[in-house]
């Protein structure tokens, strides 16, 4: 059984195509993150799943039930909002109980389930308080309890942590993840914070301009970005154009503005135009491995504690490199960089076809 399925879902607002042909299949119990910059369509996708938007075309299935035109109150989806959206006139207890009241759950069971849910987020002591008497972190935990107490078929998170400070964000996201694992509820989590997405999810869905750029587990998406957008959005990347000048089946040589680079690829042929990338942390600084070595001049060296960020001018092209800990780098110093062949990823290729 799939937890959630979107089939070719599109939604426009006036002339603006917010999402454009989204296809997504989420396994039961899986934790998926929709990641992308603002305006990429991630929140529209989430609100379409919740039922606040009816798609212009396409189908939405929750647990194999077609819900495309079902109103939000009959979807059994629990949602956590960025603003928490607690009911200000109700106590914590009544906030959590609201969904059960709407479902006409017997009062005794309501009482028991609300108490369980509050215990789960460790807020039993604050059951009688009003939301305005709670801290941001506590409010978000109430919102979480309120969303899970109805035993939803799918849990939806709309940037739930963006109003919390950095420390709290880390602890609450661990809490969300462990709670989700324990309850096994299929979850869709929207964020623009790539670190958050990599930490929390089983799979990451990277979106841009209303379309899905790449779907994969966090390591794969980071290590094998499928497009220039993904490479630039997740982590840091040097993204360059080049032309294939030699190819022997497994190894190709690509001529770029900072030198001829050898990289692995089986499909490229001589004369192909490519866009490729490599991560700054894969660049080996001041220690030639003999592979893809280039000489340059330090343009900028930024010491950041655990690492040093270098911008090196190689034949007029700036290459970014990062190395652990610092060295004694100064602007204007000559430096040798080498980039292992397996650090390169081909993002776009034009085989002349």
């Amino acid at each position, binding site marked *: 059984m799939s937890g959630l399925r979107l089939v070719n879902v599109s939604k426009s607002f006036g002339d603006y195509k917010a999402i454009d042909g989204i296809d997504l299949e989420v396994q039961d119990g899986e934790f998926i993150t929709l990641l992308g910059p603002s305006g990429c369509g991630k929140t529209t996708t989430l609100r379409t799943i*919740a*039922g*606040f938007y009816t798609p212009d075309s396409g189908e939405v299935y929750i647990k194999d039930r077609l819900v495309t035109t079902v*109103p*939000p*109150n*009959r*979807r*059994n*989806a*629990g*949602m956590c*909002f*960025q*603003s928490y*959206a*607690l*009911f*200000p*006139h109700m106590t914590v207890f009544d906030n959590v109980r*609201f*969904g059960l009241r*709407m*479902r006409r759950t017997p009062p005794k069971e309501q009482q028991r389930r609300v108490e369980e849910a509050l215990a789960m987020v460790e807020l039993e002591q604050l059951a009688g308080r009003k939301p305005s008497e709670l801290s941001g972190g506590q409010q978000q935990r109430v*919102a979480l309890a*309120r969303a899970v107490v*109805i035993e939803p078929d799918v849990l939806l998170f709309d940037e739930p942590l963006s109003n919390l400070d950095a420390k709290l964000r880390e602890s609450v996201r661990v809490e969300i993840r462990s709670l989700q694992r324990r309850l096994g509820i299929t979850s869709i989590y929207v964020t623009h914070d790539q670190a958050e997405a990599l930490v929390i999810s089983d799979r990451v869905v990277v979106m841009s301009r209303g379309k899905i750029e790449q779907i994969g587990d966090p390591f794969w998406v980071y290590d094998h970005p499928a497009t220039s957008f993904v490479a630039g959005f997740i982590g840091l990347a040097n993204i360059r154009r080049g032309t294939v000048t030699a190819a022997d089946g497994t190894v190709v040589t690509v001529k770029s503005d900072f030198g001829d680079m050898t990289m692995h690829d089986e499909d490229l042929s001589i004369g192909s135009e490519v866009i490729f990338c490599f991560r700054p942390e894969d660049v080996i600084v001041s220690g030639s491995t003999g592979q893809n070595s280039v000489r340059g001049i330090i343009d900028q060296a930024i010491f950041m504690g655990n690492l040093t960020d270098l911008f090196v001018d190689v034949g007029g092209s700036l290459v970014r490199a990062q190395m652990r800990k610092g060295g004694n780098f100064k602007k204007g110093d000559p430096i040798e960089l080498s980039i292992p062949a397996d650090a390169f990823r081909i993002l776009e290729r034009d085989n002349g076809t």
Partner: protein
Amino acid sequence: MKNPSRAKLVDYLLLVPGIGYIFVFITSTVAVTVLQSFGLFSVTGESHFTIENWKIIASKGVIDSLVFSLMLGVGSSVGTVLAAFPLALLLRKTSSWKRSLGSIIKIPLFIPALVATFLIVNLISYDGLVNEALLFLHIVNKPVRMLNDRWGIGVIVIQIWKNLPFVLLIISASIAGIRDDTIDAARNLGAGRLAVVWHIFIPLAMPGVLVAMILMFIRAFGDYPITSLEGPVYPSSIAVRMYTTATLYQQWDQAAVIGVIIIVTTLFVVAGYSKLAGIVTRE
């Protein structure tokens, strides 16, 4: 500032425009009305302390007028709020046709109560438009009496017509303060449209609703032009009775008593509403 006491005097003098205004025009007028009701500062006769004027408080005429005006006050405030609340919900999200509707609704705001009463009297009088239409459609076979009815239904209708935009403004403001997320959360948790109105809109808009009701009550309770034109011959509203007592019967001191009754009743009702507001918002 060598002399602190003199500096103090200047400070006090600076307060005169503000506090002086309150004292002279508000406190003193109320005080004179109260004193007049006890025969002091009399306009017409000799001034001497007496509680004679207060005997009218027990007269059937004054009691009937008071009860009638209370009824008008409560009826108009409840009626206007009941009419305005659904409209405020409807107009919550703007669109072009809603904006036009919103502008049309505001028209009565620019029409004085007296003119409004004339307009509506024309509509509902014995041979007015409404009766003509009812007769034409054979819904009734003789005109219905809607003007100057014993229970002041006509007055309440005019009050609602006249004050709807004003009350709508207050209620819309308090509904605008409710976040979309809060409503989405309720929908997400299984609340249908009616449940959202009942559990979210009504309780969260309640402070605004109560304010609207208080202001509306004061307007309708103390109203003169509408009830004098459209109200029943008997009982007259308390304001109309005050006017006739003073001008027709030349009993200014007794009119002052009625004035005091109006003020005190208003204060009691406001206190009652505030208490209610306290209970409602605590829930």
